[in-house]
């Protein structure tokens, strides 16, 4: 399949003109004059050769004329090659399969996989196919391809996970893949009502058809909605999402052994608490599990941590030898988290960080760098080694950051304008509201928009850097990139209330806490199945019609951008000029052959 596309495909209609010389040729042949002549015997020898030669010339002339007209039409249609990724130019069928926790009921994923396989088989032969698995996020399992076996085998590998459901996320991802071409979306899901509750954005462009295949939810579901330790007991709440009364055993399991068991009876769509008493281990965790044969499996268990979680060590590097205000706002914000027990914040001037012992460095879950002007060579090396060795660093590029030594501090060049940009009143906008840092701002979504900065530094585009948020002027506000084995998040303004009033904004505390949680994610104890979204346990579903009506239709905002990209590509390739040159050569050849033939 060729990647040939056209900027003005309507001109291809002109290729119909190529039929004119063909019709003339056929017409001419039909009306060939027959002359009765007495001395044909004298014509015999020469004309046979002439006739053959003439037929060849006629065919050559015809080919040249047709080629000239086709080339003219194709040249006016402005052809360009869209690249080797041929499926990009084909109409696309996107199969989006729900892999959220609510698909984990027995047999549910089997039915979903079967439906997706049927949808793939029924897709038009002219379509490329793409496969998306979605829950909280939508992941492209198979990029657009014409290889249907790859789609089929990928469908067979799909399985439910513990994530929630966000239909708009799946729709938005489908829309992104389809872009400006003809598209069709097949959604295979249990159509869970809670999938529409998230306040995120996403829809399908006008003209993209959608087919919704519903996978029936289970008749009921039992879920452990909470569990906590009370002295020697563990108290768990069990929710019955079914329409019939259920009596089910609840077990307490430690290290794979049942240490307590109780029966719980729950009214239809009701809940019940159960106390489990047994000899709890000194540390580690225990699991509360309810037996549920027909419902979702991932919400049948919940872990209870028996140890108190240690606070995570957070270092804040400032350029404030007096220790008066540097890092104050960050410190105060992080102290709030977890009732003051989640983070252990250590604020130090740059000259003091060399005093960190090796043990302290290894305990450090994340580092905030708010100033570098007081760092000496050893101090810069400490930060550089920490970051490149797998550390998590947030850099605020405020006035206390020395642009000249920043590359030495980080071990990588950031590529930015050293002179700060004055941006009075610029607000911050998240590029992707689904990013964990910005989850607190989804509802109300305007909270982050109240943040205003007066100055910031302008980062230049750099490969491998993801822009998480931008200022209203378009410059990057918050970026994320890998450095060595570590991760670097850059805030291009200040967090010490010098270049911005952000630290005084209500959004600052959740921003600082979530950013720190995001950076320290790998150091946090895993709660296992306890991370299940409770809304996901409710199997209440919409109908196919309700689901289809809930899909927002959007205009193809990317159309103009795609057209401009295509125009740039066509401008660079300039195949139309080559086409016209070949057309002129064909016409010259036609004139030459035509003159000899007449």
């Amino acid at each position, binding site marked *: 399949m060729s990647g040939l596309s056209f900027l003005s495909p309507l001109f291809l209609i002109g290729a119909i003109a190529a039929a004119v010389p063909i019709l003339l040729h056929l017409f001419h042949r039909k009306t*060939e*004059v*027959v*002359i*009765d*002549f*007495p*001395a*044909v*015997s*004298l*014509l*015999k*020898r*020469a*004309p*046979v050769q*002439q*006739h053959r030669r*003439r037929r060849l010339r006629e065919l050559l002339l015809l080919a040249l004329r047709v080629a000239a007209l086709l080339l003219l039409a194709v040249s006016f249609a402005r052809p360009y090659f869209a690249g080797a990724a041929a499926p990009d130019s084909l109409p696309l069928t996107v199969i989006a399969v729900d892999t959220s926790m609510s698909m984990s009921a027995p047999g549910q994923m089997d039915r979903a996989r079967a439906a997706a396989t049927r949808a793939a088989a029924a897709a038009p032969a002219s379509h490329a196919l793409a496969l998306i698995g979605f829950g909280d996020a939508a992941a492209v399992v198979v990029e657009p391809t014409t290889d249907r076996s790859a789609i089929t085998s990928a469908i067979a590998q799909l399985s439910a996970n513990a994530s929630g459901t966000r239909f708009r996320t799946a729709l938005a991802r489908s829309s992104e893949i389809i872009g400006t071409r003809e598209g069709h979306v097949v959604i295979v899901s249990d159509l869970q009502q809670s999938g529409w509750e998230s306040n995120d954005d996403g829809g399908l462009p006008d003209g993209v058809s959608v087919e919704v295949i519903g996978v029936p939810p289970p008749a009921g579901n039992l879920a452990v909605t909470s569990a906590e330790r009370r002295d020697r007991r563990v108290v768990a709440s069990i929710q019955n999402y079914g329409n019939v009364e259920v009596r089910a055993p609840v077990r307490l399991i430690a290290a794979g052994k049942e240490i307590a068991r109780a029966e719980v009876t729950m009214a239809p769509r009701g809940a019940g608490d159960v106390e489990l008493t047994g000899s709890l281990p000194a540390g580690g965790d225990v699991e509360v599990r309810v037996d549920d044969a027909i419902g979702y499996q991932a919400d049948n268990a919940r872990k209870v941590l028996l140890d108190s979680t240690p606070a995570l060590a957070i270092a804040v590097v400032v350029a404030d030898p007096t220790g008066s205000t540097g890092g104050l706002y960050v410190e105060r914000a992080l102290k709030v988290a977890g009732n003051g027990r989640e983070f252990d914040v250590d604020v130090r001037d740059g000259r003091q960080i060399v005093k960190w012992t090796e043990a302290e460095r290894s305990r450090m879950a994340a580092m905030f760098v708010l100033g570098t002007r007081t760092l000496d060579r050893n101090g810069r090396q400490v930060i550089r080694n920490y970051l490149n060795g797998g550390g998590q660093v947030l850099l605020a590029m405020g006035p206390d950051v020395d642009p000249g030594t920043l590359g030495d501090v980080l071990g990588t060049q950031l590529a930015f304008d050293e002179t700060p940009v004055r941006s009075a009143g610029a607000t911050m906008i998240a590029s992707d509201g689904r990013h964990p840092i910005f989850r607190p701002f989804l509802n109300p979504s305007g909270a982050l928009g109240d943040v205003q900065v007066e100055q910031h530094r302008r980062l230049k585009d750099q490969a491998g850097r993801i822009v998480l948020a931008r200022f209203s002027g378009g410059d990057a506000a918050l970026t994320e990139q890998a450095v060595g084995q570590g991760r670097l998040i850059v805030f291009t303004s200040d967090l010490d209330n010098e270049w911005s009033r952000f630290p005084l904004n209500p959004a600052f505390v959740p921003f600082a806490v979530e950013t720190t949680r995001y950076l320290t994610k790998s150091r946090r104890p895993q709660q296992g199945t306890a991370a299940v979204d409770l809304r996901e346990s409710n199997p209440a579903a919409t109908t196919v019609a309700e689901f289809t009506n809930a899909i927002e239709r959007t205009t193809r905002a990317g159309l103009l951008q795609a057209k401009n990209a295509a125009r740039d590509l066509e401008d660079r390739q300039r195949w139309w000029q080559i086409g016209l040159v070949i057309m002129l050569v064909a016409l010259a050849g036609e004139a030459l052959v035509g003159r000899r*033939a*007449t």
Partner: protein
Amino acid sequence: MAGAARFLDPAIVARLGTIDLKARTIVEGFLTGLHRSPYKGFSVEFAEYRQYLPGDDLATLDWKVYARSDRHFVKKYEEETNLTCHLLIDVSGSMGYASGEVTKLQYASYLTGALAYLMHRQRDSFGLIAFDDSISALLPASARSGHLRAILLALERLEIGARTNVAKPLNDLAAAVRKRGMVVLISDLLDDPANVLDGLKHFRYRGTDVIVFHVLDPFELKFPYEHAARFRDMETAEEVMAVPDSIRQDYIEKMQNLIACYRRELGLVGIDYCQLDTSQPLELGLMAYLMTRRRVL
């Protein structure tokens, strides 16, 4: 073309009524013209006096003139011959071709009629044979009154036949003709030249004088077609696709070679050859005939 203007255009002759009228018009006009022409001595009706020369037959001396003028003049009487002439006309399919108003067959029939009329006036005996690949009409030679009408009627009823085969009727006729005479062949000779020559040589070996009128159409001579066309043979229906511009020169050379071949080979055996095209006056044919007859007699 002052000379040509004295003669009748074959296209004009074609518009005349019956072939009888056509023949008479051609011959009378031709003979009238001869009085002013350099061919005066060939007239059959013109009688003259000339001074007696030693050796002249005394019986031809006009005694009345001698009595009036005391001079000796010889009186030339109107000619009387016993010439038997066979008119052979080709009616094969190719004779039906015409680029203008007159087909080759029409032209040949006018010429044949004119010759018959002329022979009738000379009180020669004459007959008609029409042929294609066989003899399709045969009127034996005769000098009877009324024979001219039969000949002209037969000419008027001629129809286009099949393929040309000149040799066969010539051989048949050669076997039948026992009396010294004259054969006039009017044909387009689009046959194998060797066959035609073989047939005609039979007559010459028997002492029969032969005159061949090779009738062609101007388009056959010049091949002036402009556009590519499919040329279909009028006798065999064989078709040949040709671009005239590309083959004209080759064709004309072949045609001229054919004419030259006939002229040369027939001349070698003493056969008169006259090539006519259907745009030329018929009188040219009569003139050629009279020249041949003069030699015969």
